[in-house]
């Protein structure tokens, strides 16, 4: 199964904000986490994730800081801001509406939703 581009694009912001709400993180770890959460179904590219992170940073939903790691490398960590948390809550409300509607329309197709 492959998740369509539009759906990936629509869900990207809430997923990233959700992951950052768990604690600050950096690009590679975020990709791993997404992979883990979706059982490998959501396969984001770097070309998708990093520009998205930069956009969220520009919008003020996340803030970034550079931290030194082994050798001369430095790593850019992202942290969610209060504004980002508000955005996450709003996105969550919208997604909840969509999911509620879908569960009513497709009661038989997704029976396990009720118990999960």
């Amino acid at each position, binding site marked *: 199964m492959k998740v369509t581009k539009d759906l990936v694009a629509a869900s990207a912001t809430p997923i990233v904000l959700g992951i950052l709400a768990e604690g600050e993180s*950096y*690009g*590679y770890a975020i990709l791993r986490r997404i992979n883990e959460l979706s059982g490998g179904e959501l396969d984001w*590219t*770097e*070309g*998708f994730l*990093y*520009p*998205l992170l*930069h*956009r969220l940073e520009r919008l003020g939903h996340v803030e970034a800081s*550079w931290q030194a*790691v082994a050798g001369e*490398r*430095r*790593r*850019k960590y992202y942290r969610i801001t209060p504004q980002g948390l508000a955005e996450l809550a709003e996105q969550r409300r919208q997604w909840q509406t969509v999911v509620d509607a879908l569960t009513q329309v497709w009661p038989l197709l997704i029976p396990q939703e009720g118990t999960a």
Partner: protein
Amino acid sequence: MTVTDGKDEVEDQFVQWREYVRRRPELRESDADELEDHLRETVDGLVALGLSRDEAFLVAVKRMGGLDDLSREFAREHSERLWKQLMFTGEPADPARRGSLYAMLVCALGAAVSIKVPELFGLSFADGAMFYPRNFGLFTLPWLAAFLVWRRRPATWVYGVLAAMFALGAVVANAYPLGDDSQSIGLVMSHLPLALWLLVGLAYVSDDLRASRRRMDFIRFTGEWFVYLVLMMLGGGVLIAFLYGIFDAIGVSADDLIENWVVPCGLVAATVVGGWLVEVKQGVIENIAPVLTRLFTPLFTVALLAYLAVIGWNGSGIDVDRDALVMFDLLLAVVLGLLLYSLSARDPQAPRGPFDVMQLALVVAALLIDALVLYTMAGRIAEYGTTPNNTTAIGQNIVLLVNLTWSAWLLFGFVRRRAGFAAIERWQTLYLPVYAVWFWTVVLVLPPVFGFR
């Protein structure tokens, strides 16, 4: 599987990969850092799964996908970068860039202060007469050279040579007994800045004096610096127009402030800032000089060919007085400039195309015109004898003629597939010291030879 560490090899590959990333205007230094960290993490993850380091590197790079796609995505988010006006949003965490910003500010301030120092000794712009035009290059170019040397950290003797030559320039500009309306003073005023500019060139290439590529970089630097300077002067013009206007509106005359402070200090500081912009923003506007060249090469070619056709049709000789000779010198210089800047932007591996043929036509047309000019000029010198001006004009002509003749020959070989492109580039970079020798000869030797006439 062979058990090799391969650590160094992989490190080399990382360096190479970074090189590729650096060439993308859409990707900044910080993006490169972020992506490199990602790549290294991926490699480490794959090594943990049992791959060797170089295998892991290949897989990781492949997984990251083509740089084309990657930078397109980045460009979409960072469309402002395509405007490249990022100078003051530079990465605060980058100490090297910070350092060069401070060095630039110090040098620009130094230039601005130095042009006001003579006033303390009673030489104002109004009655200093020839003092400022004579010394103009000396107020700015040493500071630009200082900034470049600060960045390059060359061998100690380079500092000595630069200091000595700038001092020599100062001596020539001020100690030579040049009358205010002698020809020699005109020569010194026009050629000293050029001679000093080649000292800036020495500072520019000082970390690798023999490298041909480095000298080509200096040629590029010159073009970009000039473009920046013109842009800054346009901006400065707008600023000054507003200063006049808004102060006038409150009944205060800003003339004195503008003429004695804003214009001179701004101008000398701008030359240093221009150098800094080119250094820090390499790859930013670096396409402008070549683009201008591409636009104007066909136009100049057509114009010169038309000129030749008209001469042939009318059978008229060129009426050469000194001004005309200077103009034809400048024409050769422009043709050389068009040639240089299209060389500087050309991919050495690119195949020959119609543009190369057009360049050959341009150079040959310029040479033919110049041959006519020199022919007429020879008669004139026999008639009137030599003066500092016509000696310089003829000498300049010969310097350019030699360069263009050999360039034409090399271009001809290139178009005929006999010779490689590298030969043309090498010829131009080898020729740079010739200009230096010539300009310094004009400045140092000609005035005494002609008794400071």
